[in-house]
């Protein structure tokens, strides 16, 4: 229970850190820290908490920095969290290369799904070209690898 609360607090912290860093660097186009944390949460805690983590990260991002209808990102990350939770409970994804491609795929699916669904609710989100999408996904995956290593070390120390 305590670990789950810490993980949820970490999600809020990731969002605040991202918005704080965005004051100095235009990182939001390349890095999505709440998504990385939600991915780790889902992989390490299973589908149920993965759904909660994904949904919370989406809702927080949209409620604080979105406009118009909130919840579309939460809906997408809910499904992503569920899928990642299922994946994490059946496979041990520890290598750098599988993790990189997993994070890359998650970033691309999350972004493309939002670009696809949001117009149905009258929103026109930023559209990423295939090149920009690849760069965004790769940078986010690289940042995610570092964070995953940190989380893993922290988990091992705690146990």
């Amino acid at each position, binding site marked *: 229970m305590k670990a789950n609360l810490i993980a949820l607090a970490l999600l*809020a912290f990731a*969002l*605040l850190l*991202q*918005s*704080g860093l*965005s*004051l*100095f660097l*235009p990182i*939001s*186009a390349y890095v*999505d*820290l*709440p998504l990385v944390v939600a991915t780790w949460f889902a992989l390490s805690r299973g*589908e*149920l908490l993965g*759904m909660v983590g994904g*949904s919370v990260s989406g*809702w*927080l*991002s*949209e*409620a*604080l*920095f*979105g*406009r*118009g*209808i*909130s*919840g*579309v*990102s*939460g*809906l997408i990350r*809910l*499904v992503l969290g*569920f899928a990642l*939770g*299922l994946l994490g409970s059946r496979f041990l994804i520890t290598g750098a290369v599988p993790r990189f491609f997993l994070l890359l795929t998650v970033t691309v699916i999350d*972004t493309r799904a*939002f*670009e696809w669904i*949001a117009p149905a*609710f009258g*929103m*026109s*989100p*930023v*559209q990423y*070209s295939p090149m*920009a999408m690849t760069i*965004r996904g790769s940078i986010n995956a690289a940042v995610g690898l570092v964070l995953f290593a940190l989380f893993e070390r922290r988990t091992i120390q705690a146990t």
Partner: protein
Amino acid sequence: MDSPVPRVRTESLPMRRSWMWLLAFLIFHLVAISRQVDVGGVSMLERTLLSIFSPVQNAISAVAGGMVGTWGSVVDLHSVGSENERLKVLLRVAEVQLLSQRAAVEENARLRVLLDLKPRLPMATLLADVVARNASPWFKTISIDKGSSHGVFHGATVLSPSGVLGRVITVAPNSAGVQLLVDRDSGAAVLTERGRVDGIVSGFQDEGDGSPLLLMKYVPSLAVVEPGEVVVTSGLDQLFEKGLVVGTVLRVAEPVGLFREVWVRPSASPAFAEQVFVSLAPRDKASPPPLP
């Protein structure tokens, strides 16, 4: 020989429960989203989250600003002596220029009275700090540290010293969310300062370097628009005051049918705006109609 059957049986029950949870969460999300479609305005959830997070965002902004300022002070100590002398010289020059400009302002006021022109009332504004920038990759929004308790209202114009930055879209007591003009869903009625050509600008991302631009639409194909022309708000949309600088024309597309598109580089850079001005009173309150 071991049979794989028990393994399948032990997993089937939690699996079914997981799918039930997924279904429940999906229904909850769809209901929550669909409720907003008809309501409009700022939801209670958004207002609550803004109220909870804005003090933390203020604190992060203050700490980060303090750290940058301290580091800057340490670095600046090296060149402070020579810079001081140089600034003293510049100050004397500026004082002389200020005197002549004061004289020009006074002369301008006298001429206005003589010509019986109605002076344009300056918009009442409030200075606000940018405490967070869009953490979401899809939208162009910022958060500021002033809200309804300071007089900020939904739809207030947000300006930077170099031009229009955007409009307030969510208001909490001590913070507000601003939709930037470079957001794809934003819009403003504008006209070119020299040619007086009308159009509507909205956010657009340059396909080359990805920098935020404005796309001016509904420009008549026969209208003459030159690169470098200043684009200002026309006030026709009743959202922005007339005459506020929006940007400069970057390039003009070939006409397609009745219209042509014009790319405008925004004059206010949203990427590194730290402080902004927010209009305080709605338009109708700022300039009440004259009494009969």
